[in-house]
């Protein structure tokens, strides 16, 4: 293993985890050992890799042990090279190798990076890589008489990199997207509702400010409340004045009795009825009581004076 100037490159195999020396704080490009993925060379009557990717779960269905797999494929001449891998297992191997997830740069398959090797490349004390029928295989080094040591010098990494689903084993990414979309939509709807509600609030406040000018009133609520109090008092006083006057004008007076004076000033209404001696005005008093009118009665010679405060 050698280091490039900007990034460290490593060949990751579960068996070699403890042997890797990681430079702290430096990004690490990882090349996955064939023992960490499943690979197939396939010929399909489709043109794009995108279409192939859709078919990969069914292509690998019968050959994979039970697990949660992700898939990748790229075109190589007339054929497609397809991969199946378990994110969780790769992540575990990365962790075991002492690489922090923040350090991980890009992740490649050994297949795509070493498919051009002509000889056997020794990647650990016991294993080596070799190519057979365009597929890169891992085998015991004892199978081979000659081998070269693994070197990244002059190795140009391909564009075939994968992105691991760190939480793919917890929740299916598709379900995650669906939940995310639903929650985002819900948040958007709430945001929209909030916007509409705020506009409505502003409208109401603007209407409230306009209302007094619309009716040509004073600008403040306090001033208008004082006006309302003043005019309500006038209104109730005038209603009472008319009601009490009406009571007296409709009153059936006895013979010789007559209203001689109606006097209203400073909210006191006084009615003087002539021809009523003291003790003879019961019918008038009982009428006032019946109508629940608070009053004062006084007699002067042959006249009765009723005072009512409005």
């Amino acid at each position, binding site marked *: 293993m050698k280091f490039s100037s900007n990034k460290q490159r490593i060949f990751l195999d579960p068996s070699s985890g403890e042997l890797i020396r990681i430079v702290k704080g430096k990004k690490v490009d990882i090349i996955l050992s064939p023992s960490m993925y499943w690979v197939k060379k396939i010929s399909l009557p489709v043109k794009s890799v995108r279409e192939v990717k859709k078919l990969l779960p069914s292509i690998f269905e019968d050959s994979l042990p039970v697990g949660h797999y992700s898939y990748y494929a790229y075109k190589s001449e007339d054929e497609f090279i397809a991969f199946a891998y378990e994110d969780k297992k790769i992540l575990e191997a990365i962790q075991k190798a002492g690489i922090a*997830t*923040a350090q*991980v*740069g890009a*992740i490649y398959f050994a297949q795509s990076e070493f498919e051009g090797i002509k000889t056997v490349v020794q990647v650990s004390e016991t294993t080596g890589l070799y190519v057979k029928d365009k597929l890169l295989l891992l085998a015991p080094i004892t199978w081979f008489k000659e081998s070269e040591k693994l070197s990244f010098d002059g190795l140009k990494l391909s564009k075939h990199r994968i*992105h*691991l*689903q*760190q*939480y793919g084993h*917890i*929740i299916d990414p598709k379900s*995650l997207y669906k*939940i*995310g979309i639903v*929650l*985002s939509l*819900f*948040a958007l709807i*709430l*945001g929209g*509702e*909030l916007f509409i*509600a*705020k506009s*409505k*609030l502003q409208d*109401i*406040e603007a*209407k*409230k400010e306009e*209302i*007094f000018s*619309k*009716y*040509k*009133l004073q600008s403040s*609520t306090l001033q*208008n*409340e004082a*006006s*309302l109090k003043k*005019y*309500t008092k*006038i*209104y109730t006083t*005038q209603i009472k*004045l*008319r009601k009490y*006057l*009406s009571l007296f004008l409709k009153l059936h007076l006895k013979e010789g009795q*007559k*209203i*001689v*004076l*109606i*006097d*209203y*000033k400073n909210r006191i209404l006084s009615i003087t009825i002539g021809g009523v001696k003291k003790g003879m005005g019961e019918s008038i008093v009982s009428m006032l009581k019946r109508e629940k009118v608070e009053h004062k009665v006084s007699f002067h010679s042959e006249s009765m004076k009723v005072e009512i405060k409005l």
Partner: protein
Amino acid sequence: MNQINPLQIGGLLLVVILFLFFKLSAVQNEIVEADQSFKKSEKLALDVSALKNIYADKKRTQKRLQKIFSNRKLHTANLKIKEQKKLLKVSSESIDTSALNYLMGKILNDSYNITTLKIKQLSKEKASLEMEIKW
């Protein structure tokens, strides 16, 4: 490979949703309060406006009273009418009862702010009158 935990994203979305929900709830409460306040102000404005139109509209009061005073039934009443800035004084030293009935019928059946009223019987057919109407 710095992937964010989907649970963190979900949690963040839930926090955003909760924040929006509480914010919306607060704004809706503000709308209810603002609406109540607006209705209260509207009622206040309508009431003040209606009462002012009745008791503080000088032109309206002048016009209506002028119509009453110009009626031929009051031609013999010798009414003395004195207009001041804030009130109108009507008086008659001797008014016959039919004219008085007509005048008081018209005044009491309409909305005027009568501040002073004095009707004194002089004889069976005659009375004196003093009245002040404020505008």
